[in-house]
């Protein structure tokens, strides 16, 4: 590698397999002493051709396939895909299904955010906090196992509604779990807000400015930590979000700590949403009675996944298989912002900054 300009910079590779990165991604850092000057990202280590597979399976089989694109936002993929199908077929889902979709999505969001916050603690070397966050997350993992029978791929979505229901027993269980979670989450938030180890490692580190955030088209907590007030649940409500009060927390600093605090605040929002849903949950069927054919057409679907706006494009031609399914996960534009966050950063902070966009590699590369 030729060092750019002065002979003072040299290149260090990080990845594709690296202890600090949970998934394979290959970085080339131009460094000067301990300071990162430039970064080049080389992707593709978990490219699996899922887009090709979607064209070989029927629309109904694809509901199952797209759930397997990613583990942490597994529910958001089928959720958005079935919304696009429903748009094309002109279906309106039952009221109860709309609320149950919100419940599934918010449970997944809490578990996903707690995972990312736990990893942040781990990367700062504060492993007690890491284990504590993972223990709190275990409450939501147990909820998923109890309500859906699975801890990651919950299989809750179907075209025309949902594939699960809540009865008196599971509702009481979920309510009790939220009562247990709420004080734990508040205590965690207080630790992230005030602990000096966290503050020293995360404040003012990996900064992304408001204008850079707009230029990179970042979404989700990364955007909201730069003061961009955009949340699909509010900007284009779906499911039952138009009947619920969704707070959109934003911060101005755009550093690692702000992104963590946005996720922490969103856990609180999700807990309130879950309680509101359980309070307002209407009766009635959980899905449409039959499996409708999806006619020829095109549709755009989008939802607020834990990492931000997830977009689906679906084009059908009346056949069983879709003509084209294309999606863009929230991590996809967020990678680009790393170039700005990492310039000027210390080598020791690379892992913390990369983790702060909550990157999902299997989602990005599909």
């Amino acid at each position, binding site marked *: 590698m030729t060092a750019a300009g002065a002979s003072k910079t040299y290149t260090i590779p990080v990845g594709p397999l690296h202890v600090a990165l949970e998934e394979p991604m290959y970085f080339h850092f131009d460094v000067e002493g301990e300071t990162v000057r430039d970064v080049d990202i080389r992707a593709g280590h978990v490219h699996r051709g899922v887009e090709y597979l979607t064209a070989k399976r029927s629309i109904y089989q694809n509901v199952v396939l797209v759930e397997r694109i990613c583990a942490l936002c597994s529910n958001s993929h089928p959720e958005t895909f079935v919304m696009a199908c429903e748009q094309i077929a002109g279906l309106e889902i039952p009221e109860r299904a709309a609320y149950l979709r919100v419940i599934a999505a918010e449970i997944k969001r809490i578990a996903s955010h707690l995972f990312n916050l736990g990893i942040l603690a781990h990367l700062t070397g504060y492993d007690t906090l890491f284990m504590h966050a993972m223990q709190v997350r275990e409450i939501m993992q147990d909820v998923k196992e109890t309500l859906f029978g699975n801890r990651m791929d919950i299989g809750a979505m179907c075209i025309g509604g949902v594939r699960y229901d809540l009865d008196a027993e599971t509702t009481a269980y979920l309510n009790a779990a939220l009562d247990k979670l709420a004080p734990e989450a508040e205590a965690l938030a207080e630790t992230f807000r005030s602990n000096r180890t966290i503050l020293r490692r995360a404040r003012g580190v990996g900064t992304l400015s408001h204008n850079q955030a707009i230029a990179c088209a970042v979404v989700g907590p990364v955007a909201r930590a730069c003061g961009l007030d955009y949340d699909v649940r509010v900007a284009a409500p*779906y499911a039952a979000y*138009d009947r619920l009060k969704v707070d959109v927390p934003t911060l101005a600093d755009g550093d690692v700590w702000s992104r963590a605090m946005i996720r922490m605040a969103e856990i609180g929002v999700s807990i309130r949403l879950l309680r509101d849903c359980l309070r307002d949950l209407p009766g009635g069927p959980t899905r449409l009675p039959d499996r409708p054919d999806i006619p020829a057409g*095109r549709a755009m679907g*989008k939802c607020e996944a834990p990492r931000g706006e997830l977009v689906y494009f679906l084009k059908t031609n009346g056949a069983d298989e879709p003509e084209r399914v294309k*999606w*863009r996960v929230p991590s996809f534009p967020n990678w*680009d912002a790393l170039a700005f966050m990492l310039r000027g950063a210390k080598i020791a902070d690379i892992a913390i900054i990369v983790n702060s966009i909550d990157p999902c590699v299997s989602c990005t590369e599909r």
Partner: protein
Amino acid sequence: MTRVPEDIRARLDAAAPAGIDYEATVSPQGAVTAWCGLANSEDLLSVGETLLRLGARLAMISALQPPAPEEEEEQETEEGAEADKPTKEPPKTFGGTPLDGTSYEIDYHFVLGGDFVTITAYLPAGGSISSLTPMFRSADWPEREIMEMYAIVIRDHPDPRRLFLDPAIESAALERLIPYSTLVNAASTKGLWDKVLAAKGSAS
């Protein structure tokens, strides 16, 4: 929050002198989904500039090779693709690109507030289109992905390297059937199959 303005159709019309095919739907919750086909793919840059001025965010770019209507065979197999071409005059897209299974459709999905505006450009086989990356930073990766997945030429891309695929893999990967063993470079697969056949032979 900026949403799609009332006069979006007139603005897009003014930016695309060759003409547009505009259609919009509004969801029960009020979100607009607009679709705008371009008669001439060369109008993409001026349409992009109009949307940039409106504060639109380029959320995604989808490319596809629409199959010819009533024609079952897509260009999936390497062999025989030429032989399957329809002999009659193929139907055409808006703007006159032949819809024969070899042409391309590229959809640029913009987000304005909570609304979608999708700009569609049609390209014949071997066609090329301008890069939006100098205008929208977020077009960089999607355009690089399109260049490796399809035989589409994107002009003036500032960094036209491979995104996901290794340079050793032939381009237009999504237009061909690549056997799984080739894809993952699984040298053991044939050996495994030979073993299976040998075991079957000795059993019978």
